[in-house]
């Protein structure tokens, strides 16, 4: 008889198969351009394990991790917030502009900037939430539209109202610099590379999300709504309120994605801020199976691969090969997840049925005796 935990070990197949497949496919791609996969992986490993690379990995992982959390909260109740990207961009813009406009004592300044980001992100997400609750518009369509609207609106606000006055012939389009009280110094420095302090806030955020989803009544309602919305409603969950709250929460977290870069590096909203993090966040949430620990691992893996691949160009191998690697990871995870989920469910049912039958037999025997 298989024990339940033995069946659940099958879940390990998901990341393992994804990584194996990713290595195989990337090797094939590398071979197809006459590069040696072994050399490539070795130099990635050597470069990637240097101290400064590890620091950079953490810095790269932080926004991905937060984006993954924002997406996962929605996923947990079958709400697809494809709009994390737009929420992140508009929130970072507003937070940077607001942060540059005021001077406050340091902790309050930081908190103020984060608050503006969260409120803006939540407000932008609320459009999709209201459209869903009041008009039945599916959040996938509305958030896709809102992503593009955020791009246009952000560009308009930046170039017309929020832009730093041009100095001389400088053409940089950016918000004014945030004063020192609104910046965060490095947590530590490894191999000459700063590890940004915001990683601590990100960890706290991860703990907060875990506790919220798995330990609170709100989280129970949220998960129940994701598993069976009808049963959740019958149990007293108001689906509309739930959608509003979850979407606002997801948007608020999305509003924090840019903070690490803002506090620790750019100190202003510039066009150099990374794009596409909202979408990468979807990938990270999927690969991390919507659990904060999984998302953290996935974000670190993606961050590390990104960093380690920088060495490939020096080896004459286009580093873009790793985007394909990541794509393969995403697809193999979602496909393997589907397959394993089905197998695990049917195995669990079988095992439980066997155990139940034994229980019944035992009962009959006691009755007979």
């Amino acid at each position, binding site marked *: 008889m298989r024990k339940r935990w033995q069946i659940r070990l099958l879940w390990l197949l998901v990341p393992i198969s994804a990584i194996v497949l990713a290595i195989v496919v990337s090797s094939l791609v590398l071979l197809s351009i006459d590069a040696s996969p072994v050399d490539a992986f070795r130099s990635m490993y050597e470069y990637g394990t240097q101290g400064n690379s590890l620091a950079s990995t953490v810095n790269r992982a932080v926004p991905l991790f937060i984006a993954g959390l924002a997406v996962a909260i929605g996923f947990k109740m079958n709400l697809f917030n494809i709009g994390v990207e737009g929420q992140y961009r508009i929130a970072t813009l507003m937070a940077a502009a607001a942060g540059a406009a005021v001077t406050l004592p340091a902790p309050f300044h930081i908190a103020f900037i984060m608050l503006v980001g969260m409120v803006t992100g939540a407000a932008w997400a609320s459009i999709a939430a209201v459209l869903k609750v009041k008009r039945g518009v599916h959040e996938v369509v509305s958030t896709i539209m809102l992503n593009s609207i955020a791009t246009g609106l952000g560009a308009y606000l930046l170039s017309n109202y929020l832009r730093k006055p041009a100095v001389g012939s400088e053409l940089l389009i950016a918000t004014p610099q945030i004063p020192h009280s609104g910046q965060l110094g490095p947590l530590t420095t490894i191999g000459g590379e700063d590890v940004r302090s915001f990683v601590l806030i990100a960890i706290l955020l991860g703990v907060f999300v875990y506790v919220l989803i798995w330990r609170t*009544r709100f989280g129970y309602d949220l998960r*129940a709504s994701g598993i069976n919305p009808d049963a959740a409603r019958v149990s007293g969950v108001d689906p509309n309120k739930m959608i509003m709250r979850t979407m606002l929460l997801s948007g608020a977290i999305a509003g924090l994605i840019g903070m690490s870069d803002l506090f620790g590096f750019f100190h202003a909203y510039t066009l150099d801020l990374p794009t596409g993090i909202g979408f990468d966040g979807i990938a990270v949430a999927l690969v991390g199976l919507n659990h904060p620990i999984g998302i953290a691992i996935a974000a670190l893996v993606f961050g590390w691969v990104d960093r380690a691949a920088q060495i490939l160009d020096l080896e004459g191998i286009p580093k873009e090969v790793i985007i394909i690697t990541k794509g393969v990871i995403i697809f193999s995870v979602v496909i393997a997840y589907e397959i394993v989920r089905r197998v695990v469910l049917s195995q669990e049912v079988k095992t439980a049925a066997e155990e139940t039958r034994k229980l019944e037999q035992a009962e009959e025997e006691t009755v007979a005796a």
Partner: protein
Amino acid sequence: MAERAPAVELKGITKTFPGVVANDDINLAVQPGEIHAVVGENGAGKSTLMKILYGMLRPDSGTILMDGSGVHFRSPKDAIAAGIGMVHQHFMLATNFTVLENVVLGSEPAHAGALDFGAARARIRELSESHGVPLDPDRLTEDLAVGERQRVEIVKVLYRGARILILDEPTAVLVPQEVVELFGQLRELRAQGVTIIFISHKLDEVLEIADSITVIRDGHTVRTVKPEEVTARQLAELMVGSELPTPETRESTVTEEVLLSVQGLGVRVGARWALEDATFDIHHGEIVGIAGVEGNGQRELVEALIGLRKPDTGSVILAGTDITQWPTRQRRENGLGYIPEDRQGRGLLLPSPLWENTMLGHQTLYPFARGPWINKKGARAQTEHLISEYGVMTPGPDTSALALSGGNQQKLIVGREMTAAPKVLIAAQPTRGIDVGAQAAVWELIREARALGLALLLTSADLEELIGLSDTLYVILRGRLVARLDPATVTPEELGSYMTGAKQAGVA
């Protein structure tokens, strides 16, 4: 009749699903040109058997013979080609298609790939006229009434030249007049040589329409009988395999104190009043039964009481407090319990562990919650208590709900509602689709609840159950409470005639 080979013969059909044996050595012979009923309780294996016959499932073992020779169906397509047609219980129609599109789909008349609408239209008209099944091929399916949609299904099957027609619970969704019409059409079809397999658990209907009846119980064939040889009661006993347990309550525990009062409650669905001016009281220690053919407003009544639907008129008063505007959660927190009719769809989080299912509906209350936190320890302890107290057969509180049998799932639901110590318990079809043992257990629990002084509202399709358990019986017909009856004196036949509107009375 001469010795002709049966039109369809099933020999030794066995089919298992993970953890359950749905069909176990089933044998069935259907003579050509007869209406052959297959009866059994929900979950007895009728639907699985028919899906096998229709090629949707493949049996683990056993053979299918048609006109004496063996056939193998790999898909419905093969079954259709062999002349078998199926009218599913849940209509298999695309509502956004026209009648014509629904009928021809899969066997379309076409010239070089382009649909031949003229030929299709003509054929549908011809079929509907020759078989007395009126139908307009160009109407959009979503605009059709239920009875009309069933006609689309029948014409769909005839269009494919079926000689053998499987009807899966065809009367479940019909109002009585439509049932009469349907039976007329079936007799007409039989007269034209069509063989009909009629799946049902409604014995009076089966006795009226069938030429022979095969009874299935727990995945086995019990017996094949002729309708003139048996009474409804004997048939029912064949179905459940023992003397029927009688769901009788003992002495009355009804008190004078009203716990739940419903005043002029009305619910509109679209332009139609699904529930109109419902007024009744439930006292401490009273079971009020609502009898009615499915789809006559029971569902809307229950949903308005539990707060899933906003009533358009009237009020609901719980122990003196007007709760009409309260959301579901507040109602539940204040002592309204609910056993939903769709156990899996509305009552459970199937992939979640049992302790999370025990919480469902009470997640804001002790011992499941402590402030804003959930109390996993408390929930697990409560679940273990519930498992032993209510005889839920399961390895433990961490098993997923999916792994429980229907009866055990229902015991869990009833148990969790009871342990929350409600004032009022609404039980919608509490014994639908569960085995006889679990049924008796659920009845016992309902009786206990009554003895504890709860006010209970019971809706059911099982008339014996309603008569046996209720202290007061109302009949609901087209959204109105049309009769108030005394279960001590009323017979199932009488009740049935009230439900179909054949007999009328005032609400006393």
